[in-house]
């Protein structure tokens, strides 16, 4: 695996929003001024100690940061190889890493005096995190969510509504995340003066990939400090699932200049990479432009975006953040993919060994780590980003594991022997 050149990886994105050949600002003219406004506001906020202090305070008191870096002893022993640590983003308020980003951006929206948030969501985790911030900061909130996702992530839909957000089921296209993103952009075009568009991952036009990366980097900064304290050394591998790639970049970014730390981004191989039912953009895609940036995409020969599949609603996006495209090209991060089946098995494995029910998304990273660990010596260290908890996925997981509400046998029979 080629080593990154630290200088280089620190210079992206450039002032025009490019990560090497990826990124940029491919949006309707109506939105361009808003992107410049956002860029300016973010630059100022970033330099403002009051902003950082506010962010840190909410992260600690509200989100529950720092999240633990948990040594998964049982999993490690079961696999018999490298030590596996889990970065516990599943313990964040609202149940996933998404809130790191929505908190930061919502504070930015308040600073920019916007009165309304608009956001897309796939699994609903970003939608919940955005609706949460809207409630916390007294903003109106409009969520766009593909009709299919509305149905498969019902719990999160109800949570968003209870938080006061309006959830708009999107009926166009494939009725999933990419269409929700289209619809959120349409909403933003129409409301750009008073609305803050709160994107849920490191995609979208510049400066979003930069902003989201920065807000998510708290994951990696904490993990770096924690692993150094625990192991007195850097980890050998970082593993994270990748859809847009925000949890992955959040973990990876603060380690990018540590050349000895290998990194693996795990995409959704769905029903297998040989067929069309997957969402492995970096592994199986090609370069194009979608939703404001140039990056790897899953597209047909005519540049039409393909429908994707993953059992994890939150991995079901045909694009990926431009920084990941860049990191792939320079070889700093290795990208691979894990099937629905493997992810489901990883959920069961982690539940069984560690008592942690992970989100299906995060289970992709767990599955990869479980395959990697046995091939490494026991002195090696792997950090897996456990990006979210699995409550939202229980119906899906239960259906696949054959679990039902019925008991194996009624309690009354068991209490009496014979």
């Amino acid at each position, binding site marked *: 695996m080629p080593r990154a050149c630290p200088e280089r990886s620190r210079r992206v994105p450039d002032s025009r929003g490019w990560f090497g050949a990826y990124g940029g600002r491919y949006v309707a003219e*109506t*939105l*361009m001024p*808003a992107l410049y406004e956002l860029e300016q506001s973010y630059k100022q906020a970033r330099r403002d100690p009051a902003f950082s202090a506010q962010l840190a305070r909410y992260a600690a008191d509200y989100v529950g940061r720092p999240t633990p870096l948990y040594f998964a002893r049982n999993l490690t022993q079961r696999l018999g190889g490298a030590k596996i640590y889990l970065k516990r983003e599943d313990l964040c308020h609202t149940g996933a890493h998404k809130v790191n980003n929505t908190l930061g951006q919502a504070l930015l929206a308040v600073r920019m005096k916007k009165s309304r948030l608009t956001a897309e969501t796939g699994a609903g985790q970003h939608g919940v995190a955005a609706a949460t911030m809207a409630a916390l900061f007294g903003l109106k909130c409009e969520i766009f969510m593909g009709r299919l996702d509305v149905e498969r992530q019902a719990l999160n839909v109800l949570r968003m509504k209870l938080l006061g957000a309006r959830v708009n089921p999107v009926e*166009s296209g494939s009725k999933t995340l990419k269409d929700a993103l289209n619809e959120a952009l*349409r909403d933003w*075009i129409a409301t750009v003066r008073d609305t803050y568009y709160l994107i849920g991952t490191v995609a979208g036009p510049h400066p979003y990939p930069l902003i989201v990366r920065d807000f998510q980097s708290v994951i990696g900064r904490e993990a770096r400090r924690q692993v150094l304290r625990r192991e007195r050394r850097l980890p050998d591998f970082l593993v994270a699932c990748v859809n847009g790639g925000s949890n992955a970049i959040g973990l990876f970014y603060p380690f990018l200049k540590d050349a000895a730390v290998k990194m693996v981004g795990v995409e959704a191989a769905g029903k297998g990479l040989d067929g069309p039912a997957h969402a492995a953009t970096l592994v199986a895609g090609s370069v194009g432009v*979608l939703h404001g940036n140039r990056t790897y995409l899953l*597209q047909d020969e005519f540049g039409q*975006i393909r429908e994707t599949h993953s059992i994890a609603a939150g991995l079901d996006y045909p694009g990926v953040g431009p920084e990941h495209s860049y990191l792939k090209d320079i070889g700093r991060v290795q990208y691979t993919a894990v099937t629905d089946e493997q992810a489901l098995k990883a959920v069961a494995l982690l539940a069984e060994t560690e008592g942690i029910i992970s989100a299906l998304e995060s289970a992709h990273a767990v599955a990869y780590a479980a395959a990697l660990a046995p091939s490494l010596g026991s002195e090696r260290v792997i950090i897996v980003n456990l990006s979210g908890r699995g409550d939202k996925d229980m119906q899906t997981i239960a259906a696949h594991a054959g679990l039902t509400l019925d008991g194996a046998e009624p309690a009354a029979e068991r209490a009496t022997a014979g």
Partner: protein
Amino acid sequence: MNRIEKTFAQLRRRREPALVPFIVAGDPTLEQTESLVLELEARGADLVELGVPFSDPAADGPANQRALERGLRAGASVDKILALVARLRSRSQIALVLFGYFNPVLRYGCARFCADAGRAGVDGLLIVDLPPEEAGELRRPARACGLDLIHLLAPTTPAARAARIVRMARGFLYYVSVAGVTGVRDKLPSELEPRVAALRRLTDLPIGVGFGISTPAQAAAVASFADAAVVGSAFSLLIERHGASAEALEAVGALAGQMKAAMRQARAGGPRQAQPPDDL
């Protein structure tokens, strides 16, 4: 001098406003699109924007989204659309602009796309999600192939930015009447006229106005202060209603005819004056 320039030069001489219908290539079939362009030309259209279908048209409202989906289902890929243009060119010299999103173009290859488009008889390109900042790679081959890269200006565009954009603009300027996606609207914004007036002070290029114009009265109102009215969703809805039928041709043609007539009449009064606002 390409067809766009020629068209606007002639119209300017005649003090006549341009009607610019937008229809999606392949909606509902490529053959019907061919007939529709000829019909529109016959009923007074001065330039036709041909929509290139894209799976993720994030700047379009529901009517055009559905039209683009129909085009997609009809298989209106870039190569087929260029073939359509080539066929049209044997029967019409109306100015043609391809209107769409960047990814299908990029996938085809910018240089190859421009070369093939120029050869087929396309006159201009309007890529909604390609702001001037990112347009370099398409601008160069477009110029080389004699294609005008049409730029959009929006109500949110600040004056300084507008000044920069008009400097690199070619063909005509497309002023987006509202901050919003394409679609039929009841009323045009009241600041539209002063904003166009302000824009006019920055450039000699013709100024077209689009997004939301759907009735002859609205087209006429726009014609009173702008050089062209772009009408999209209204045609998409007619095509949706009538499908690939002769009635569709008639309905689309009739609306175009009424619009053009109303616009001519409005222009009799000449453009009015108004105060320029801060933003465009």
